[in-house]
């Protein structure tokens, strides 16, 4: 079965010896992945690796456009949940189940380790919920 390093996200094909020795990043914990998920992640990783600096800048700018309002661009926030994933400029995956969950924070994933969180929206939502109670 294919694996993925829990710490750095590196992908391994079935039966790779590296898993026994641990990942070069030092981690020795791996996710087991189904073949289809492995293939999807492999294609996405290859696409992301080939993105140019301009593409990355464009993706970031697009996300700011989508969020709108006054956002402090110097404050990155990292969380382990995302509603929207930007694969490259103009390509988006939306997790509509999470988007429909009102209690979840609104998060856009730009790339591994880089997320946008709409705090204003979340505070507004929490205030609304508190009012109802």
């Amino acid at each position, binding site marked *: 079965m294919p694996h993925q390093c829990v710490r750095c996200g590196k992908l391994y094909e079935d039966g790779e010896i590296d898993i026994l020795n641990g990942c070069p990043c030092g981690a020795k914990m791996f996710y087991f992945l189904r073949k289809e998920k492995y293939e999807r992640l492999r294609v996405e990783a290859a696409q992301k690796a080939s993105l140019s600096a301009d593409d990355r800048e*464009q993706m970031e700018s*697009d996300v700011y*456009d*989508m969020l709108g309002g006054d956002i402090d661009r110097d404050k990155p926030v990292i969380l382990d949940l995302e*509603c*929207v994933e930007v694969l490259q*400029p*103009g*390509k*988006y*995956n*939306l*997790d*509509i*189940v999470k*988007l*429909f969950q*009102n209690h979840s924070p*609104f998060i856009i994933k730009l790339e591994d380790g880089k997320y946008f969180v709409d705090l204003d*929206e979340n505070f507004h939502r929490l205030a609304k919920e508190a009012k109802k109670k």
Partner: protein
Amino acid sequence: MALFGGFLRRLLKGLFRGKKDVKLGLYGPPNGGKTTLANKICVDWLGEEMGTASSVAHETREIQIKEQVTIKSKGKELTFNLVDTPGIATKIDYEDFLESGIEEKEAKTRAKEATKGVIDAIKWLDEMDAVVVVLDSTKDPYSQVNITIIGNLEARKIPVLIVANKIDLKKSDIKKVQAAFPQYDVLGISAKLGTHVEEFYEALFKITNK
């Protein structure tokens, strides 16, 4: 000035308390015919169209509202604010727009706007008093988008009418839509040709309890 604005808002709110406008939302996947149906309603009762319908997916990328639409049926009258929403999708890819002859830069902007449109449509759901889910009856109804929308409406206890649109097309299969959502009223219509639109208006009275 801001304080005065707030006071004025509260005063107006107080004066019109109890006269809450009914918000009727049109939801569904892209290209189901939401805007065609919104236009049909607006032309029939207001004499003007609401937005631009197109065969290219994600033509509606912003929430469109038509206020104070009054429809009449069998001596009854119903007034609502009609909310046409962008199509909800799990994946938006600018390359799909290229096939329709749209240039790459515009296609990427369109994809960005469509993504924002999905987020906005979902945010607006809690504001709705009743929702018409518009599905393309020529397509498989068992999709994640359809099931998620309808499941969430049920969880929020928002009254739902499912419209199986495009019954004028050969591939249309209303029975399949009915079989997918047996606990709901499913009405087959053609928003484009106006087929069964009278039954549709009648059904709106039912879901809004008027």
